[in-house]
């Protein structure tokens, strides 16, 4: 639901990341990482990005979304695993004392300019 705002942030950051000496460059692709636990729907983000990019230096650019799985580590037994269902207890020892070590990403990794 807030994908439009996020798309606009991505465009702002990407445009600001074009090196100053590349005056005429346009962005062809933006590579981002979206954790599966983040409150972002990739398809709607792509849709908003396409609209918001019009008339910017990212017009027509592709938004490449790498979805990052939710990984957790148990504080008791130190085990690590990938969470598929929304159950956040240790699959080995049952402890609820866990850290989510990936899956919350909403990061821009790189841009591809031409």
């Amino acid at each position, binding site marked *: *639901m*807030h994908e*439009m*705002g*996020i798309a606009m*942030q*991505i465009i702002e*950051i*990407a445009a600001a*990341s*074009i*090196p100053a000496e590349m005056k005429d460059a346009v962005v062809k692709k933006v590579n*981002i990482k979206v954790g599966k*636990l*983040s*409150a*972002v729907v990739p398809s709607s983000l792509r849709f908003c990005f396409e609209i918001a990019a019009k008339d910017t230096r990212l017009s027509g650019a592709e938004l490449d979304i790498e979805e990052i799985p939710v990984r957790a580590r148990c504080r008791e037994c130190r085990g690590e695993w990938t969470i598929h*269902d*929304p*159950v*956040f*207890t240790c699959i080995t020892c049952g*402890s*609820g*004392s*866990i850290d*989510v070590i990936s899956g919350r990403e*909403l*990061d*821009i*990794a*790189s*841009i*591809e*300019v*031409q």
Partner: protein
Amino acid sequence: MEIKVVRKVLDVNAKMAEQNRKLFAEKKVFVLNVMSSPGSGKTTTLQKSLTRLMPDLKCAVIVGDICTTNDADRLAVSGAPVVQINTDEFGGDCHLAAHVIEKAALDLDLDNIDLLIVENVGNLVCPAEFDIGEDARTVVLSVTEGEDKPVKYPLMFRECDSAILNKIDLLPYLDFDMDLVRKYIREVHPGMPIFEISAKTGEGFDPWLDWLKSLVLKKIR
């Protein structure tokens, strides 16, 4: 040519949230962010909570949720200063961002506030993603919404420090399975305190208010 960027998309919000957090630490103001879907009973719960917390605690409210009418007026009856945020009526603002809180806080006398409660926009998705510089987060779920909300919106239930199950006065008229919702919440967020209340009758408020008060006192002392 590929150019590495490596930035968080929301880093502007994160920085602003840190700034808020610093200000609230200096002023010794405890900030609670209250979130839920529209109509779960945030305003009603806060109304009842405020009358019981004041005057022992000096409270203020920032309201972003305008789903039901006159939230600000309803809350102001308690005597607490209330700042209403006018969110974009076309749904552009599905959450409160840190810069909005920063601006709203300018209208408050932070030196005379112990507890600042933020009633976020009614939405179980977006507000969970936006740090506003708060100390604690509470999600309100009413028993009319269905047991599966915690597993449908796991981020919200993981990001929050406590959950309120509201409208328990309606349980006799519903097929809502309390054991099931408790189980779901425990799976998504093991150890999360759950408070079962009726904002209408006032039932169950003691444990909830004790939890909140002890957190506030820890910070402002």
